[in-house]
């Protein structure tokens, strides 16, 4: 029989039992919609986690000096001074996979304001540091490159420092002068509160000043830097960026091929990978629960098709008596179940998109609907229609015309 006639026939028979068709379809609709919504929620949280991990600086690269080895006694990490400020310049100009870079000098200091004092860490950095770490200024402003050139006595402080020196986290100390190592330093801005990091460290217990201020006024002006913080242009190319930096530094430090590196390059992509894995597991879990509801919907199709075959045994007998072949009957019932799952799948896609959108809008959950999730759930629902429609259709096609005609 021609495909157009088969479709017409399927439409007619489905249209005859509207409520039954709708209820059968509902199983597929809910299944497809929940697969799409779950994948959208999963993908949304995946990207959300990725973004928040990225704000910790997942595509950041840290370069530390190597380990000293004096007469066989190894001194631990960063126990030597091998990285110079000119290395920073070299990486910035010659490494294509690096977009931001800042030298970092770090020192434990005692900050004093009036009768209060507080032991904290001062960082000497360039402006790129703020971009790499995604730091923002809550009040006041950041320092400029001319501040850096002039080694200006200015600083930005974290809220923990404000709390301990001024007694109140919420007061505005911009313009006040604090003393660090007896040097008066003007507060020009407050960093936005960041809270604890993944490892429980208070990220607000910090003072940040221009690199040259710290280097020249507090670190006795050596040409060496404590470490370098850089960021790669993309997370995927972090490995290549590390290789690029390594070979550049080896060349600059004039290391022979047999020498070990006199520096260490580290990335945080491991953290990102762990979070990625967790989120992937969650997505698979959610999607498989939704997939099970799609499967149940498929069983609903099979159930209804079996009822339909029994109910229409006489019709099958008539069709066979006047010349329908087994495969004509098979196709007739297959097309019916495929039409149910096909239309159910289409409605389910729309409903899934709407449901995801509602979750995103009212649940405040990040939602990302991917084309692949739509294609996946649609193909799955069509396959379910085929699979669960096959058995009842086969049963109908195997009927003997006389027995089918005599069926009451």
């Amino acid at each position, binding site marked *: *029989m021609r495909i157009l006639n088969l479709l017409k026939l399927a439409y007619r028979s489905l249209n005859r039992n509207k409520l039954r068709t709708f209820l059968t379809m509902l199983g597929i609709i809910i299944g497809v919609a929940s697969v799409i919504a779950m994948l959208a929620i999963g993908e949304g949280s995946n990207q959300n986690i990725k973004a928040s991990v990225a704000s910790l600086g997942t595509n950041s690269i840290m370069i530390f000096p190597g380990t000293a080895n004096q007469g066989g006694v190894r001194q631990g990490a960063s126990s030597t001074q091998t990285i110079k400020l000119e290395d920073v310049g070299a990486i910035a100009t010659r490494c294509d996979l690096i977009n931001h870079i800042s030298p970092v000098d770090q020192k434990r200091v005692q900050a004093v304001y009036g009768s209060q004092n507080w032991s904290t860490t001062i960082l000497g950095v360039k402006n790129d540091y703020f971009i790499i770490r995604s730091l923002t200024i809550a009040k006041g402003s950041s320092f400029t490159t001319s501040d850096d050139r002039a080694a200006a006595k200015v600083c930005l402080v974290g809220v923990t420092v404000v709390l301990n020196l001024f007694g109140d986290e919420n007061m505005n100390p911009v313009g006040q002068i604090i003393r660090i190592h007896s040097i008066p330093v003007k507060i020009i801005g407050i960093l936005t509160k960041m809270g604890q990091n993944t490892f429980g460290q208070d990220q607000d217990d910090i003072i940040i000043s221009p690199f040259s201020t710290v280097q020249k006024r507090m670190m006795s002006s050596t040409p060496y830097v404590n470490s370098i913080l850089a960021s790669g242009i993309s997370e995927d190319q972090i490995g290549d960026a590390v290789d690029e930096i390594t070979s550049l530094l080896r060349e600059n430090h004039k290391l022979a091929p047999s020498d070990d590196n006199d520096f260490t390059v580290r990335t945080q992509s491991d953290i990102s990978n762990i979070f990625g894995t967790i989120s992937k597991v969650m997505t698979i879990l959610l999607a498989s629960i939704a997939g099970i509801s799609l499967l149940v919907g498929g069983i609903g199709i099979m159930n209804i098709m079996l009822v339909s075959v029994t109910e229409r045994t006489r019709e099958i007998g008539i*069709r066979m*008596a*006047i010349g329908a*072949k087994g495969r*004509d009957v098979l196709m007739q019932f297959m097309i019916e179940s495929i039409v149910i799952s096909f239309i159910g799948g289409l409605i389910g896609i729309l409903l899934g998109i709407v449901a995801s959108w509602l979750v995103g809008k009212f649940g405040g959950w990040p939602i990302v609907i991917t084309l692949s999730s739509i294609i996946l759930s649609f193909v799955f629902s069509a396959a379910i229609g085929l699979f669960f429609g096959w058995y009842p259709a086969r049963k109908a096609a195997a009927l003997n015309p006389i027995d089918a*005609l005599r069926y009451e």
Partner: protein
Amino acid sequence: MENLISVKDLTKTYRTGDVDVHALNSVSLNINKGEFVAISGASGSGKSTFMNILGCLDTPTSGSYSMDGLDVPGRNKNELAELRNSKFGFVFQSFYLLPRTSARENVELPMLYNKKVLSNEMEEKALNALKSVGLADRAGSMPNQLSGGQQQRVAIARALVNDPVIIMADEPTGNLDSRTSYEIMEIFQKLNDNGITIVMVTHEPDIAQFAKSNILFKDGKIIANNPVKERKNATEELKKIAEPAEEKPAS
């Protein structure tokens, strides 16, 4: 006259439990083109089984059967379906129209399974077939809107639409009153006059009188095969019924 159906030593055995039931016991018969055969017999005599085998709805246990020059036994289900579609027209006692499907669409049904008919000719052919049984104006009616006689005429139109060589009618008047039965017989006789072979099962002796020959079944065997001596003409019989009915109020 040209031979259409040739059956030799046809046997059909059903197995129910441990007992073999011989529904047909070595039946041989020839039917020529243009015949109008009425088969009668008590229930269980094997006449329906014989009809089903002739109509390729059932297969014999043994024996040979050739139809329009084609050997039937040994053919697979699909080939039998094709034979039924192209050579036979079926008319049943309970009409067997598809419910909630218009008369025209019921008549189109056999053409859906016939590759030789194009989609765009179906409607015209169906309407012509309905016209030939006098139902041109009821093409859009559903079976439940039609009387028994009209339903049977739709079924006949459906049987005719693929231009069959033979019509198999299984008690076509069993569910109809005598007047409507005669109307159906009138159609059958006209079709037969136009060259279509008809094989009809009936247990009503007066209906059998409209055929050209009568076959009697008993215990799975043909015990009599006689030409009808005083063949009735349905058109005249209908007139006879109509006349007394008009005179009744006067008497």
